[in-house]
């Protein structure tokens, strides 16, 4: 056991070597200067692998992309991939390893909020730089993290506004279904506050939580049907996470809940999740995101082409967190060029105010609160598993990571 510890530095070098092997394509022109290290902190095994492996591939694609463009500051990029295995303490350990042993310049990683909360103290202590690409509940701000996914005001509230509009079906009763963890809890709390401000009574809101990976939705879907049978137009707002969505949608389809009668808008269902289901019975159900693969425009065409050629599969789909990873990576490249350094202290201020014409078709800007301005798109699920936009905001919306619908935010420490 002693030898394990003292030999560790050598192992770490081996680790770097392993990462270099993962990216064998090295341009000789970079040979002089030391490469810039990009940490990749996404689960490749365990429950979250289903979502996170695509993000690992996106980061690797961006590293290759940056190198093909001559690198950053003339230096070659090198990815260091680790597997935190969907284990939250392991996330913290791997974050420390990336920062302390591999001395990465920037890290892209995490999907769940708990993984982010687990690594946050490590990034703050060792002054690292993390790009977090998934929509989340807000209520957080760290000088070492840039959040490139949506805050609640960029997803949840516009989606519910849409449901209550004439086009969305003028819903008067809302069923809030979610997986029992912090993102759905917070989002639903914000939505409750919002619905109350719109004059919807508590009796017209149903809230139900299920564990992760819940697979038996019979009872809950039947209860929603009953809830809808008490008069007034009803809609479902789903914050159901990951794996549980496939059985949920299957049950929805089989119990004959049609989008015309009870539309269901989801915040965590993207093209990747839909790839596992036959979407024909689900046509018309909604998803609210900041990017859809079907978004028209040149930036998205380029992004999709880049992805499909990298992954060597013309059928692989893109999704919102992948787009957020891409946008974050490009912004970091721009900021490093602007700051003429990859040091965290130099890149962080340079990142604020960075703009990019993102694949979602809007110009996004990194705001002072470390979040992006993003458009909100509401899309309908199509028979081919794609989502097409039926409503969108005219401009990119500024992120409010501290929601005004949570009263406690008034006396938060700044």
């Amino acid at each position, binding site marked *: 056991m002693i030898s394990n510890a003292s030999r560790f530095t050598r192992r770490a070098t081996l680790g770097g070597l392993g990462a270099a092997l993962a990216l064998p394509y090295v341009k000789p022109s970079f040979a002089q200067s030391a490469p810039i290290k990009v940490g990749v902190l996404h689960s*490749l*095994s*365990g*429950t979250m*692998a*289903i979502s*996170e*492996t*695509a993000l690992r591939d996106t980061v690797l694609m961006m590293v290759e992309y940056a190198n093909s463009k001559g690198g950053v500051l003339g230096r070659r990029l090198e990815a260091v991939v680790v597997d935190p295995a969907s284990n939250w303490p392991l996330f913290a350990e791997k974050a420390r390893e990336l920062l302390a042993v591999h001395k990465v310049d920037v890290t892209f990683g995490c999907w769940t909020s708990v993984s982010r909360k687990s690594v946050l103290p490590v990034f703050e202590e060792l002054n690292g730089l993390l790009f977090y690409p998934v929509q989340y509940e807000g209520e957080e701000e760290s000088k070492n993290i840039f959040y490139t996914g949506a805050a609640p005001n960029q997803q949840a509230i516009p989606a519910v506004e849409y449901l209550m509009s*004439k*086009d*969305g*079906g003028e819903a008067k009763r809302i069923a809030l279904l979610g997986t*029992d963890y912090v993102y759905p809890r917070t989002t639903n709390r914000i939505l409750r506050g919002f619905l109350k401000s719109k004059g919807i009574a508590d009796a017209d809101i149903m809230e*139900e*939580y*299920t*564990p992760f*990976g*819940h*697979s*038996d939705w*019979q*009872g*809950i879907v*039947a*209860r929603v*049907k*009953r809830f*809808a*049978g*008490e*008069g*007034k137009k009803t809609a479902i707002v789903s914050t159901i996470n990951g*794996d549980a969505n*496939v*059985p949920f949608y*299957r*049950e929805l*389809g*089989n*119990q*004959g809940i049609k*989008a*015309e*009668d009870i*539309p269901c808008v989801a915040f965590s269902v993207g093209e*990747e*999740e839909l*790839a*596992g*289901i*036959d979407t024909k*019975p689900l046509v*018309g159900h909604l998803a609210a995101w900041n990017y859809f693969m079907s978004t028209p425009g040149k930036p998205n065409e380029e992004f999709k082409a880049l992805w499909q050629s990298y992954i060597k599969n013309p059928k692989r789909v893109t999704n919102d967190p992948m787009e957020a990873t891409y946008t974050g990576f490009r912004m970091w490249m721009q900021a490093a060029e602007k700051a003429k350094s990859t040091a965290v202290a130099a890149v962080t201020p340079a990142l604020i105010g960075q703009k990019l014409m993102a694949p979602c078709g809007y110009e996004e800007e990194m705001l002072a609160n470390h979040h992006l301005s993003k458009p909100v798109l509401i899309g*309908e699920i199509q*028979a081919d598993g794609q989502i*097409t936009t*039926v409503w969108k905001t005219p401009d990119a919306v500024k992120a409010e990571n501290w929601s005004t619908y949570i009263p406690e935010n008034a006396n938060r420490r700044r």
Partner: protein
Amino acid sequence: MEKLIAGLLLLLVLALPARAQDAFTTALPGLAGGFSEAAAAVEQLGASADPRALPVLRAMAEGRLQKTPEGALRVPQGDGFVDPATGQPADAAGAETVRLNNRVRQALRGALGQLQIISPDAGERLAAAEGVFRSRSAANVPLLEAALAKETVPRIREQMELALAASQLVGTEAEGKRSAIARLGSAGTTEARALLIEARIANPDMATAIDVSLAAIEQTLAIRRAAETLFQGLSLGSVLLLAALGLAVTFGVMGVINMAHGEFVMLGAYATFMVQEACRGIPWLAPWSLPLAVPAAFLLAAAAGAILERGLIRHLYGRPLETLLMTFGVGMILQQAVRSIFGAQNREVTSPAWMQGTMMLPGGIAVTQNRMWIIVFGIAVLLLVIAAIRYTRFGLEMRAVVQNRRIAATMGIRTGRVDALTFAFGSGIAGMAGVALSQIDNVSPNLGTGYIIDSFMVVVFGGVGSLAGTLVGALTLGVVNKVLEPYAGAVLAKVFVLVAIMLFIQRRPRGLFALKGRAAES
């Protein structure tokens, strides 16, 4: 003067059909407009009762209606396209599909209902009556009355009566409303209840009549709800049964703790995926891919089981705890292997048409088709296992080896071969469970992890070595879980069940159906 009046009248008469045509031609271009414009146009076309509107709206609802960059509509017909305004073949270069949203879809359902309610096709009339029922507009009353007068099929009549009642309820005529309230009260559905609750707010003067109807509906619904909860419990129970049956053989009969059991279930689900992919290219075979997947999943999982038994487990007989740990390692390897081969993402396994949607049992109890078939499948697999053990040579040898290995060997039974076959058999059953699970759960490398503990609990609760115990155990757990769920929530219900089993086992360590005699002592 008279001539003038006569002339005007003539003009008017001439203009009438022209105006009727106008309603069609004026509304038509609206379909190519924005969502609210399109919805309005659809409503106008539905109200026009113009037969030419039907093919256009049908094409639109099915997502076939095209619009050219200039905004002209094109309906596909045969190999080409026609212009719905003229009915003539037309060019559709650069055209794209007219997009819908839920509002347009809702309008389409109502409009198609209005247009098809006099269709010669019975199925279309039924769907139309349902569409009109949901669109609930007082304007539909004459239409429905006319349709009802001609209708002879009882099932369609019933649906039309309900649609009429729904339309009358939002109308102005008090007499119609009263009969509607009574009619809806006898329907006993949640939809009828929703209509009545809304009507109660709008018509305070009829509150007592509505309350009577509502009470009648509540009563029907309460019975139905109980029946549906029972079905849900049986369905969950059948899933547990399927997942646990294989374990009942490998653990119950052989005493082998296989922590990789869940992974065999997962292999079965992936076998289903592969069979479906292979069938995709052959149209006549595609609907039968699921039945075909059953033997494929059995064979794949059985082969994996046989390899595992011969290669590894054989060396650890008599050391159940080590077997447990080793198979945990095997499970890790299998999961990662599947992840490497198929990717971490979910794989799409489609349900054949006969497994989709809801089925009405007598008494208006709605059950989902896929769950219904899984219950049937679970029972079939159980019977298969019982038959294999009771009536085949292999089953006889298996029982002999379980009862007394040495005597069985002296009787000429090759015990090693029987061990391998038994384990392969149990694994194969797990594979078949995977076929069923692919219809309700994710086909992902983690599929098996979610079922392993539940399966062990079912086997231990039911009584190790007893198939009847496994059946009763699985169904009891399923039903108890579903009965508790509405009160305690999905998570607590499960926690309660787990704690209850733990307490039960300490009362009866050998489970519900304890084996008696010498076998129990080993």
